[in-house]
């Protein structure tokens, strides 16, 4: 089976989407051909479109931007829709993993619904959507298999997705939140913003600047 993993983050490196796809990749069997793509810009090359259209499965991973799909990826998806809808291979299954900065993975539900609508227009089959909350913690999701810590729910969701992918079946959506209390995520996140601002020579009160 040929599986395309599409990283829809605009970042060159260290993206949460990349961490998620690396973790998923380990859960897919070795006998499959895994092709990796990065859609950082607003256009896909014809070569990439051609290769992707010949895959059995496409897995998108991207960050939630303002309740939806990041605009650069939206442009790519439109290009893909036009290409795939005229493609004879309508047996492609599409899976989507959305990571979000908020605690609750459920807040990715609208973006997943948009991807379902896209799949219908692109004439491909819908596989499954996964919404992962606590995107700020995805750097913890490295190649280790932490099955007990705060990333447990993410590992479980990715294992479920891998099983669906390997059997090319449609499954219910899964939404996860990190395995720490919401208040701890809030406090940790806000501390992170203050530290990042300080590294840029700003003070905490500068975070509140109004234009």
């Amino acid at each position, binding site marked *: 089976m040929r599986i395309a993993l599409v990283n829809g983050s605009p970042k060159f490196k260290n993206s949460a989407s990349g961490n998620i796809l690396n973790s998923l990749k380990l859960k897919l069997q070795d006998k499959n051909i895994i092709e990796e793509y990065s859609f950082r810009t607003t256009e896909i090359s014809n070569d990439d479109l051609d290769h992707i259209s010949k895959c059995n499965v496409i897995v998108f991973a991207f960050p939630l931007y303002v*309740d939806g799909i990041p605009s650069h990826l939206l442009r790519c998806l439109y290009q893909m829709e036009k290409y795939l809808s005229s493609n004879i291979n309508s047996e492609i299954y599409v899976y989507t993993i959305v990571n979000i900065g*908020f605690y609750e993975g459920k*807040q990715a539900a609208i973006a997943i619904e948009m991807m379902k609508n896209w799949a219908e227009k692109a004439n491909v089959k819908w596989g499954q959507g996964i919404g992962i909350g606590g995107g700020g913690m995805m750097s913890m999701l490295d190649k280790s298999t932490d099955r007990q810590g705060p990333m447990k729910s993410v590992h479980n969701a990715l294992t479920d997705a891998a099983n669906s992918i390997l059997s090319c079946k449609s499954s219910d959506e899964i939404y996860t939140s990190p395995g720490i209390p*919401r208040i701890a995520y809030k406090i940790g996140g806000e501390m992170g*913003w203050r530290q990042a601002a300080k590294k840029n020579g700003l003070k905490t009160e500068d*975070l509140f600047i109004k234009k």
Partner: protein
Amino acid sequence: MKLLIHDLSKEDFNDLLGTIEGEIKIIDDNSTIHNCIGCFGCWIKKPGECVIADDYSNMGEYLSKCNELIIVSKCFYGGYSPFVKNIMDRSISYIHPYFEVRNNELHHRQRYENHFEMSVYFYGENISSKEKTTAEKLVKANALNLICDIKNLIFVKDINSIKELEGVTL
């Protein structure tokens, strides 16, 4: 001030212009926009302003000064068109990086005290019922995150239909 974000051609926009009343700031596509790169510079480098140097770096400030946000967008998969979504993505300097709980979910705090109304006009020949349902959820979610009220959410087949809507003035 009204803030109008649209993805229309000049011809279509000029046709629509006659229906707009009052002071208005118009955001349209001059083909120079860059996409958000997820750097959060608008929160931690130059708070309140996007660090990407193009004509669209002050969206947060514009939102802070508007009393009505009007969006005219072709509907894509139950969401905005790529250009309009690009503008939304580049607008997060309007909010603050800190979190607060609203609707029993984490959302970002307000940077400004401003409160505005939002009107969204989706157009497109073949907007499916599923896409309409998604779009309704999207606009509600946007209103929750931007802390604004929804004034209008309207779907039309073509842009000229907006002019014919009774009781609607852009």
